């Protein structure tokens, strides 16, 4: 019963084994890939482990506060940003081992030539809001 984020990168992850960019795939290969992702999410919903999934546009902008009474400053997009998030899936699973297993399956999504991409996915545990009730360090 722990939530994990499976993070997919446009850029910034180590190179995949089957590292052909998507725009070089055949339309059928793209369809097969999308189908695989949808099936994966549907299967996780059935096992009671799916929380959510989202995809992000590759381009966005940077925004920051610029002082009282002034509009926020915007900037970018910066082409040189090293790390670019493509999307994520949130899962709720019984163990870290299970999270690794599922990330492995997702990474096997088919790419060029219908072969698994072997893409690197980043697996990040969620911080829960509160400690579980264990007595600890006199926190309890």
């Amino acid at each position, binding site marked *: 019963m722990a939530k994990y984020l499976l993070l997919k990168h446009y850029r910034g992850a180590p190179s995949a084994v089957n590292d052909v960019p998507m725009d070089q795939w055949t339309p059928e290969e793209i369809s097969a890939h999308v189908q695989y992702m949808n099936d994966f999410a549907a299967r996780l919903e059935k096992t009671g482990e799916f929380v959510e999934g989202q995809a992000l546009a590759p381009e966005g902008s940077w925004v920051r506060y610029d002082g009282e009474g002034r509009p926020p400053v915007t900037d970018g997009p910066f082409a040189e940003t090293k790390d670019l998030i493509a999307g994520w899936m949130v899962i709720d699973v019984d163990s870290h081992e299970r999270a690794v297993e599922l990330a492995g399956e997702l990474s096997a999504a088919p790419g060029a030539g219908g072969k698994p991409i072997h893409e690197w996915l980043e697996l990040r545990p969620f*911080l829960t*809001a*509160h*400690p579980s009730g264990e*007595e600890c360090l006199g*926190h309890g």
Partner: protein
Amino acid sequence: MDEALLRGLTPSVLTVLVRRGADFAAAEDAVQDALVEAVRGWPDDPPRDPKGWLITVAWRKFLDATRADTARRRREDLVEEEPPPGPAPSADDTLQLYFLCAHPSLTPSSAVALTLRAVGGLTTRQIARAYLVPEATMAQRISRAKRTVSTVRFDRPGDVATVLRVLYLVFNEGYSGDVDLSAEAIRLTRQLAAAIDHPEVSGLLALMLLHHARRASRTAPDGSLVPLAEQDRRRWDTKSIAEGIGILQAALARDRLGEFQAQAAIAALHADAPTAEETDWVQIVEWYDELTRLTDSPVVRLNRAVAVGEADGPRAGLAALAELDDTLPRHTAAAAYLHERDGDPKTAARLYTEAAGRASNLAERDYLTRQAARLNALLRG
């Protein structure tokens, strides 16, 4: 309408349906539907006999669902008959329900969800909100769990220890969504204690009551953690503490010690101390020794090291800590605390920062970061 009272009727209504011949999964759905109808209708039109009402309505829901399910002819035959009266449900039936919902074939998260619904009478939506997952996901988790236990025989005795682990998991989830899971775990453990005479069930109930009694003092108004030593002890719930201690003493007198009784004994020693300084750390260390013997869990050894640091001084605590794997959760936090007590704020500050980076929850991370910041400010002078 008292919702807890209504939900308290869930196990006996469910077992009546099962005894009349309904299969567990269908009966559980029917009871859930009846509960929903009760929540809707009772405030305006409360029945004289709530349990009788629930049984009648749940049975009717079961019949309706079965009739609709034309593929299952065998059950069709069953519904044409008058319901056999069946033996009156007893405490044993409630116990069987706990065993079934905590069956070893279920994963912990499935057992928790099924227990909360079938024994606790919570709706799928409430459970989903409490665990911050979509309702559809929780519905699937519960129906899978029901399928998993569908072949388990209802009259087979189960393992109390697995039930207690599930209830303890629920308790530790705390307060989330619109359901107070700690209070719900206490209610379910109380109900279990009424159904079975077992010192570890009493031990867990005592532990929960003693721990729950300190809840109001455990967080500051801004939501930050208040460590035990700094808690306002006047805000501890003395009634809950007295009840917990009473239950624990009766359990210990039976001389069948288990891990929950030992944990409750430690909680009782904390609850007993009028001030943090007056805590009987020597006895707490002895209880940790018992716990180590009972469970041999690394978490227990870590807590024991901290208690040793209080009983025999921080050096002794650090020595005990040094024997443990330093990748254990909270190992670094414990080391930071003991180094500060040992008069080494520089090492302590560094370790607090490191511990914050390893914390698994926000409240603890913020607490540890504040400790590091406090020491760093002190060091800057």
